[in-house]
């Protein structure tokens, strides 16, 4: 059985409020009230942002595949927020909130979903290929497992240059069945690369429960290469944050590659065309998770229980998240489509002065794009 299905929260059960509240009141788990409100605001932003994207998709403003992270926001905030600005993140195609967490403006993410020039990939990448290297976000990759060797390579480059950054490489639970996983983890171990591989274990690869494609638990998958495995409850943003904070520093200090099984759950369908429940998981299962495992609700309740959040404050934070999401959508809508004359831009970095790079009868100079297809 996939961990997320049977027992979504494996460890890190929320301790009673009394245990976790600092002696110095108005702190929880060592987080200040501002920090706690910040994490709540982050997650609410991710949630509202994606709900907005969902709306935009429904009315055709966003096309293609669109994989929502809703339900998994605790992991995005908890694993990325503790990182340094110059640490690197690379991930798969369910990455809107991770991109925002690492520092890409919601406007630039939304505009990318809209396929507009204001998007962080200029409208050419779309939902699955968000990039902004200035904030250390290296995409956004669509081939399941394809980002794993790339993540090893980013970590390689850090080590090669003698830097003290780390690379966090996310993947879905289904990606561990790709050969790239073995090859990358093994090389990372042999070369002791500063990389944390994080499985966002939402229990399913599309419609397939992890337990149907693995006889072992996720934690068993990294030992073959001598890489330590950790499990964290991704629905508990505070636990997740502390966990990654500590692990990142250990890796920064030379602890070598790490493997994290982050338990989470996807509240929506695999992509916009997949129903939320049906063939592979029951309505009840989804409902139970939405009720009991919503990372936002969990944090909200704890804050309120600890007297660190009022209803008014919550509403204000939420209103801000909605405003930012609306603003992102407005920005995206107003951003123009890419200039057709740029069709041939950025295929190559160097437009070589010799020979022809493009073999469709066009010399490849910007502005020479065809009207509907090339010519061999």
């Amino acid at each position: 059985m996939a961990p997320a299905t049977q027992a979504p929260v494996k460890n890190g059960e929320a301790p009673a409020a009394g245990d976790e509240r600092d002696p110095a009141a108005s702190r929880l788990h060592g987080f200040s009230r501002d920090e706690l409100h910040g994490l709540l605001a982050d997650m609410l932003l991710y949630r509202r942002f994606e709900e907005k994207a969902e709306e935009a998709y429904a009315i055709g403003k966003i096309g293609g595949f669109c994989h929502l992270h809703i339900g998994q926001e605790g992991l995005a905030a908890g694993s990325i927020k503790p990182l340094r600005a110059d640490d690197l993140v690379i991930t798969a195609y369910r990455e809107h909130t991770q991109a925002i967490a690492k520092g890409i403006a919601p406007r630039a993410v939304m505009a990318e979903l809209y396929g507009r020039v204001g998007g962080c990939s200029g409208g050419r990448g779309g939902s699955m290929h968000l990039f902004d290297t200035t904030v250390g976000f290296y995409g956004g990759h669509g081939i399941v497992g394809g980002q794993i060797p790339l993540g090893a390579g980013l970590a390689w480059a850090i080590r090669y240059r003698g830097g003290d950054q780390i690379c966090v490489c996310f993947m879905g639970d289904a990606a561990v069945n790709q050969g790239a996983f073995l090859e990358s983890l093994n090389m990372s171990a042999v070369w002791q690369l500063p990389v944390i591989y994080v499985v966002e274990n939402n229990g399913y690869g599309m419609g397939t429960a992890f337990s149907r494609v693995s006889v072992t638990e996720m934690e068993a998958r990294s030992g073959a290469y001598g890489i330590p495995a950790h499990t964290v409850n991704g629905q508990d943003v505070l636990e997740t944050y502390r966990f990654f904070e500590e692990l990142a520093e250990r890796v920064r200090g030379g602890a070598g590659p790490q493997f994290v099984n982050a338990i989470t759950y996807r509240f929506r369908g695999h992509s916009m065309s997949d129903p939320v429940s049906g063939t592979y998981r029951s309505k009840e299962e989804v409902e139970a998770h939405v009720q009991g495992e919503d990372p936002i609700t969990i944090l909200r309740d704890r804050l309120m229980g600890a007297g660190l959040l009022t209803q008014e404050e919550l509403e204000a934070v939420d209103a801000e998240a909605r405003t930012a999401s609306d603003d992102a959508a407005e920005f995206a809508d107003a951003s123009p489509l890419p200039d057709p004359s740029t069709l041939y831009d950025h295929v190559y970095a160097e437009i070589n002065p010799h020979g022809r790079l493009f073999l469709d009868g066009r010399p490849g100079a910007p502005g020479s794009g065809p009207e509907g297809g090339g010519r061999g």
Partner: protein
Amino acid sequence: MGVRGLRGVARKAAAVAEITYREALNAAMCQEMDRDDSVFLLGEEVAEYDGAYKVSRGMLARYGDRRVVDSPISELGFAGLCVGAAMSGLRPICEFMTFNFSILALDQVINSAAKMLYMTNGQVPIPMVFRGPTGAALQLSAQHSQACESYYVHAPGVKLVTPATPADAKGLLAAAIRDDDPVAVMEGELLYNVRGEVPDEEYVIPLGVAEVKRPGNDVSIVTHGKMVHVALQAARALEREEIEAEVLDLRSLRPLDVDAILETVAKTNRVVYLEEGWPFAGVGAQIVSLIQDEAFDELDAPVLRVTQADVPMPYAKNLEQLAKPGVKAVVEACRKVLYMEVGIS
């Protein structure tokens, strides 16, 4: 359609029904699984989920999980597993959710499936099918929009068919399953909902037989797969200018119906090759090479090619439309090989 016929080889079926391309593929698999227990379907989401594109709907219920099997996301591994099963005489249908992902499996396709029979001196045939959609759908961006024909057709040892219509989907997939060689069946996500008449009963179209999907005397649009529909649209547009375009659907790239190509060249003396993929060393390049080699003197103009723009597929709607080979480009190419002024219509 169907004007040129099947050279009398296909079984003529009496009853037809209008069904979708998706249903036709399903019907072909069921037809073959009913008659041969050695045929099974394996791939991601093919069983419990009925297929990512619902092509295998109902098949798990009908055949059970021995013969309709969900695999892990392990393209190299499950493609290789299917080749291994074929080595011992089974007839796997290996579904790639899309052929984009099959690039991960290409080593098993080329180094195992394609070369096996030869290097075993004929001892080990690989009677299997690789199938799934190829090429672009709508705004799926660079990594999910690749036409993969060139990768499958370059190495000898694999056959490749590209059904464009529901009838062809049923007949060609059935033939591919029966064939004793590895056959790639490249479908199209945008074709799955296309409806058309398909024979109800047992239906098999021999590999290597092209079909004139529309006759014409002035110019030949030779193409395959999804682009057949673009070619037909272009032909209709040209009709308004009183240009009669012939649309030849190759249907099978290996084996290749060279006679049909030479016939249409001889008829119109002007050819446009239309394909969904990139130009460099694309299928069209080979067709041009073949025509200039074998019908050099029949040509009144160079063969023109219409392809995807030589760029990775962009996401933005307008750029994607520009990058895809479209009706307008085909019409202009046809006008050009007819030495007409271009860019008016």
